[in-house]
């Protein structure tokens, strides 16, 4: 594998995706080598079971290959596009199977968050300001849902809050975030 510790610039991944769209299998292998460790870590974080994450990772790359022609380089970032496919594959499985948290020994495998910005995801302008304005409960709910793929029921159980509160915090939190980000965009 030719993975280096830092990912290549997004533009290189976008070029590889374009070559995948033209059925270039060598480009696909290169894309896999460069991005599979990031996507695998992301899937482990959500699915927690290694064997399941390995299976879903296969489906993710099958989709990436099949949908490479739909990636629009001018409209988005290649890695973000691939991570979104991975998140949706994991969420589909978790919702379909109603997968819940597993025992603690399996959780030991969850990849750590690093201070180092290895992946370079682009945050919208003023994101930190806007997420900081939400109350702690709301922020916790949104993070559990987005980062770990937890359902409303699971979040209620994990945070020992009533389901109704969790649902309304999430709904209102999303609205506040949208409003704050659009205001921030207009004033900058």
């Amino acid at each position, binding site marked *: *594998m030719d*993975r280096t510790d830092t990912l290549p610039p997004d533009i290189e991944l976008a070029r590889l995706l374009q070559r995948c769209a*033209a*059925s*270039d*299998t*060598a*480009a696909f292998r290169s894309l*896999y080598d460069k991005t*599979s*460790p990031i996507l*695998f*870590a*992301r899937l*482990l*974080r959500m699915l927690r079971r290694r064997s399941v994450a*390995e*299976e879903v990772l*296969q489906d993710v*790359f*099958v989709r990436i*290959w*099949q949908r490479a*022609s*739909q990636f629009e380089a001018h*409209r*988005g970032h290649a890695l*973000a596009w691939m991570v979104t496919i991975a*998140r949706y594959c994991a*969420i*589909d499985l978790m*919702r*379909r*199977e*109603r997968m819940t948290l597993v025992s603690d020994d399996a959780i030991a495998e969850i*990849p*750590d*968050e*690093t201070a*180092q910005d*290895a*992946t370079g*995801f682009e*945050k*919208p302008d003023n*994101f930190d300001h806007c*997420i900081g304005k939400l109350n702690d409960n709301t922020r916790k709910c*949104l*993070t559990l*849902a*987005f*980062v770990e*793929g937890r*359902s409303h029921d699971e979040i209620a159980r994990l945070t020992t809050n009533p389901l109704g509160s969790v649902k309304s915090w*999430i*709904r209102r939190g*999303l609205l506040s*975030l*949208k409003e704050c*980000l659009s205001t921030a965009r207009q004033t900058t």
Partner: protein
Amino acid sequence: MKSANRELVDRLAAEYVLGTLRYRARRRFERWLLSPQVGAIVKAWEERLAGLEPNLTPVDPPAEVWRGIENKLELRKIRRRPVTRWMAIAASLLFFVAVGVFFTRPVAPPITGTSLLAADAQTIYWRVEVLGDREELTVHVQNVYDLPQGKAHELWALPEGGAPVSLGLMPHMGDRRVVLTAAQRTALANSKQIAVSLEPEGGSPTGAPTGPVLLVAPLAKA
């Protein structure tokens, strides 16, 4: 879009991207994703919530994962391999002399056949297109066919006088491109109809349809 609808779509789009819709609501919402307006709303939410994306320490997956992907996509059978520039020139000169036809072949093969898998004229679930000399299929989701938990929809060629041959699993959103094997191409060449059956997740374990046949449709020349 009416403003009340827009609000509902926006709320559902946000929870679709966040991941908190239940399975059936997720599938139903994906039906709306065919609309470019809804697609744009989802994309806006994907960009907003990307700020929550964690920076994780990468973890190398085991080598079996790549082998699995190679097998699923039959990558070794794909002939259009990348070539370096000088090789391309050399090869093109050679082929130009040997098989002039090669050059006239467009990069994306043309659509040569279509089939609409539908319950009735109003309810088309999938549109299947055959590309080129049956080298590839594209499957487009028109309407989402309900899928019970732990099940999958599988597409079959129904060759005359022979057993059904699997053409792979059906997508539930967007479209899917399938590169066909020689056996699948032969089966399709002898088929006037294709069908979708309900199978266990991952597809029929036996290689033949095991569940009920849900839809059968004629295969028409384009």
